[in-house]
């Protein structure tokens, strides 16, 4: 039957921008993808974590085995009963039956923390966000919608740090794409690093908002819109590295550019799969 559903995992710390990226990808994939937050696979609710003094970053605080089973079922197009964790109350809700569309985007702390998980994913993305940005984003979100105070968060983040280093960060080395986000004057500076081969399935160049990604010499070139001077490019090196500094006029700002590249890659996969299906 072949590949029926594509799975993408986006790893990153709390408030590293996973949701923002996932939402942007969903939007540009026109209803062909669904987004699942792996926080739904937490083992303990907020009260239990507090009693046990355990952070949600630890493997034993997440049901990685059920995640792996669900990855495999979803990849073959089967529906699963997905647990539901409600961030607004910090408890579990009624689980929901979930039938996958053609692509599922998972975001979470440990989406490819084990080999079993890693093997089930078609693309692994790691969001490497500078602590300064994470803190600012976390305060902006959690104090407003999740009922935390800034003091809670400061304490929380300090406590999480060792677990982040031990369990979340190692996923960076196993990722196909690493998106770094650094504080920069007036905003965020983004940087994209990809292992070779990731962009290989793309035969044609595709465009999104002034950027074109074109295969070139076994690698890929990230090109600014031809109308804009000073194209960015990537050499076909062992690693694809794109530095996206303050954007040239008329071109997307860095983090939006990264989103556009990723969306372009995923759209390319879906289009190719579509062509294959028609051929059969």
């Amino acid at each position, binding site marked *: 039957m072949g590949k029926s559903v594509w799975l993408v995992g986006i790893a990153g710390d709390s408030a590293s921008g996973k949701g923002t990226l996932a939402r942007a990808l969903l939007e540009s994939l026109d209803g062909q993808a669904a987004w699942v937050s792996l926080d739904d*696979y*937490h083992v303990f609710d907020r009260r*239990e974590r507090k009693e046990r003094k355990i952070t949600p970053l630890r493997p034993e605080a997440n049901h990685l085995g059920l995640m792996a089973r669900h990855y495999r079922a979803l990849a073959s197009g089967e529906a699963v*009963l997905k647990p539901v964790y409600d961030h607004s109350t910090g408890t*579990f809700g009624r689980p929901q039956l979930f039938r996958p569309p053609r692509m599922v985007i998972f975001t979470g702390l440990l989406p490819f923390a084990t080999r079993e998980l890693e093997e089930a994913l078609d693309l692994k993305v790691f969001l490497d966000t500078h602590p300064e940005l994470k803190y600012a984003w976390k305060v902006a979100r959690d104090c407003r919608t999740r009922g935390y105070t800034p003091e809670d968060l400061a304490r929380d983040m300090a406590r999480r740090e060792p677990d982040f280093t031990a369990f979340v960060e190692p996923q960076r080395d196993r990722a196909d794409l690493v998106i770094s986000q650094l504080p920069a004057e007036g905003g965020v500076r983004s940087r994209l690093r990809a292992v070779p081969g990731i962009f290989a399935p793309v035969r044609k160049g595709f465009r999104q908002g002034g950027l074109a990604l074109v295969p070139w010499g076994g690698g890929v070139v990230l090109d600014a819109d031809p109308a804009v001077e000073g194209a960015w490019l990537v050499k076909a090196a062992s690693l694809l590295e794109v530095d996206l500094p303050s954007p040239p006029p008329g071109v997307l700002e860095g983090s939006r550019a990264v989103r556009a590249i990723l969306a372009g890659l995923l759209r390319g996969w879906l289009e190719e799969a579509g062509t294959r299906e028609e051929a059969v």
Partner: protein
Amino acid sequence: MAIRTLGEREELLRELARVAARVRYRVVEAIGRAGSGHPGGSLSVVDILVVLYFAHMRHTPTNPSWWARDRLVFSKGHGCPALYAVLAEAGYFDPEELATLRRFGSRLQGHPGMTGLPGLEVPAGSLGHGLSVGAGIALGLRLDSIPARVYVVLGDGELDEGQVWEAALFASHQRLSNLVAIVDANGFQLDGPTREILDTEPLLAKWEAFGWEGMEVDGHDHAALLEALEWAASSERAPRVIVARTVKGKGVSFMEGQGAWHGVAPKGEELEKALEELGRAMEVRGEGW
């Protein structure tokens, strides 16, 4: 699942039908492999359990002992292959473990024991105890101010046991509005039709006389079960009961309505035919195998 639109509800019902078809296949496959078991009462209770676990109860496969979960007490223990298959489908353990049904050392015994199986709340087998246990849990939850519900699944043959009615009296006396009983009324017990062995009809009127609020539904109609459960879970004063009229052996043509399939495993050609029928039902519902 909060149902907002007709489309969504239809989608949910389609999914429930797919899950139920898969569960039925797994039940017969496991009993066939074990070479013994109770297919009739396992197949009659499938839809009740599927709707409970996949569309109604608040439960947590990631944390089976979560303090605020809804509890299910499965009193008709011999129907446990259905419960095991539903728990596996719901994510409590790997469905591959179903192949160990009734084996020595397996967590999946012919009557559920406390073998460490995730999601199993209480042991069962000797009939008539579940409602007493469920009432106790419901009272405990109320005393601890935990906003969870208790669902007790009983067989109709099991209602011959006097203890069930003592528990029914206790529950209404205590006004256990967080307790729901569901009777899988398939009309048969080991020795024959329930009406001939010890007639408990009219069933609903009896429960009502014992202080319960109740309704009767087609126990294979997912939409009706879903509505009945939503009604039962909205009680404020009294425990509620759902009398679910079911067909013993539902889903396998030669077992349907046949009391003889109460406690006999299909073998050889019978097993093949049953699995073929159930496999076809899965295809009709769009589920590749």
